[in-house]
């Protein structure tokens, strides 16, 4: 089959994917010269069984990857160094990256704290004949200048987000690659199925079960086969188009839930300790809820026990909750019904059935309006003087114990995180 038969997207590549490699580990190596060239990683909170959330290249070369426990890492490399995350450093790095990206296009999208996309569609006149490769190299230079020479940046350019991300992963670290309809087949020939972003173990096995074991076979697969048999959903068609370079991933996603979970600092069955920490989680979730300007009807609370197993309960209410007080009332009612005398290892909550907030409208009941005004006033004080300047006294123990962690995936709450840093 030739390129024409595959019906590839022949539009010039105009999507650029920028990925800071081993971002947190590289930032620490940039800050601390003594760590450069050494196997090291960062974790949210140092403990015996903590996991690596970012590993340096030197550590990766020894097989220490994201998710490896500290004990396993030490077994692989007794000199392995582990630091705690420094959220303010990474959010500053993130802000720098955004500033640089915004200089090239108003249409940028951060995929996570260390990777983002620049869409150059419609910007040909402003580029003044410069190629995207040239701009990619310039962006790398600017990141080196803004953050430091130890940073490693991968840039990928492609006709859609999927191929731009694939291109960014071709030569790690520090590569710059372009995928277009001209070299797409050669690139697929050089990759394995699981090298494709979004095809992990589950989809990989499903594809193999239908005789598709290489990216090229995936490309050649009929859309009917992908839609009706392999994926059994519209996803099959999306993959069919995505592999050919057509954009399938620029649709906004709806906010489904807002929540927070926490690995208990000192696993415990002490009710006062756990309630205070849960109350603190409620306050941070309330901040997120109001930051997104939504209200929630559904509440779910869950815990996992040190002895194994867990418990969860959820409830849908007729009215929505919005203030910390409302949320805590609903959460505590559920939380108090958990099995007592069990040592809790992890706990969390989430709010679902979200609807846009209507709290700016005049309320019918004065007491409800007063609670809203109070919440708004407290939020404004905390915005100005720093989060948790005013907080519920009941959360005091939780405030001492629960730490802010670095969010992976979405970047929706970074501005909120910056206020809390």
């Amino acid at each position, binding site marked *: 089959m030739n390129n024409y038969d595959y019906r590839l997207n022949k539009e010039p590549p105009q999507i650029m994917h920028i990925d800071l490699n081993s971002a947190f580990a590289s*930032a620490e190596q*940039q*800050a*601390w*010269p*003594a*760590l450069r060239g050494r196997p090291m990683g960062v974790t949210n909170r*140092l403990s015996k069984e903590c996991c690596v959330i970012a590993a340096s290249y030197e550590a990766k070369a020894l097989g220490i990857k994201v998710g490896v426990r500290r004990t396993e890492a*030490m077994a692989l490399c007794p*000199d*392995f*160094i*582990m*630091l*705690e995350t420094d959220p*303010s*450093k990474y959010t*500053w*790095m993130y802000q720098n990256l955004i500033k640089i990206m915004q200089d090239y296009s108003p249409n940028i999208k951060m995929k996570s704290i260390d990777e983002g996309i620049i869409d150059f569609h419609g910007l040909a006149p402003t580029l003044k004949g410069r190629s995207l490769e040239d701009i990619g190299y310039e962006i790398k230079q600017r990141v080196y*200048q*803004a*953050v*430091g020479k130890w940073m490693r940046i991968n840039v990928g350019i492609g006709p859609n987000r999927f191929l731009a991300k694939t291109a960014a992963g071709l030569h790690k670290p520090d590569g710059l690659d372009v995928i277009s309809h001209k070299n797409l087949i050669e690139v697929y020939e050089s990759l394995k199925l699981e090298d494709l972003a979004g095809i992990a173990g589950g989809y990989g096995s499903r594809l193999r079960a239908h005789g598709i074991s290489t990216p090229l076979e995936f490309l050649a697969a009929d859309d009917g086969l992908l839609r009706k048999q392999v994926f059994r959903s519209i996803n099959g068609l999306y993959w069919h188009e995505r592999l050919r370079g057509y954009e399938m991933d620029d649709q906004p996603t709806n906010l489904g839930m807002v929540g927070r979970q926490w690995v208990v600092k000192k696993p415990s069955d002490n009710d006062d300790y756990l309630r205070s920490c849960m109350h603190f989680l409620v306050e941070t979730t309330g901040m997120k809820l109001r930051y997104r300007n939504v209200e929630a009807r559904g509440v779910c609370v869950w815990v996992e026990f040190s002895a194994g197993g867990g418990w969860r309960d959820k409830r849908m209410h007729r009215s929505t909750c919005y203030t910390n007080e409302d949320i805590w009332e609903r959460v505590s009612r559920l939380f108090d019904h958990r099995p007592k005398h069990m040592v809790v290892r992890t706990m969390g909550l989430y709010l679902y059935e979200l609807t846009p907030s209507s709290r700016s409208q005049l309320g019918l009941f004065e007491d409800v309006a007063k609670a809203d005004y109070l919440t708004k006033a407290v939020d404004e004080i905390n915005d*100005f*003087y*720093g989060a948790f*300047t005013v907080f519920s006294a009941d959360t005091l123990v939780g405030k001492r114990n629960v730490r802010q962690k670095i969010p992976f995936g979405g970047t929706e709450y970074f501005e909120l995180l*910056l*206020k809390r*840093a």
Partner: protein
Amino acid sequence: MDPTIEINERVDVVTVFRRQGDISSLCMPCKMRWRGQEIALTELTLRHPTVQGKRMIHVFHVSDGTNGYRLEFDAERLSWTLIAMIAERP
């Protein structure tokens, strides 16, 4: 192993404010006196701002060529604090 040595002590710092340059090099702590010892700081490896409530804090990671130091400048109180250090071969 975490090689960070936490210090959290106020220190005397001699700083150079340059007339021009990019933001990462405009302000450079050059010398620090800590526990009676003068340390010449030769490299600014990373600088970033952060906030503590409404107080602006500038974090400076610097090196004396052997050890790395994390210094924080409190822009409201105009004070320098040596927060932590990592020795060359932790």
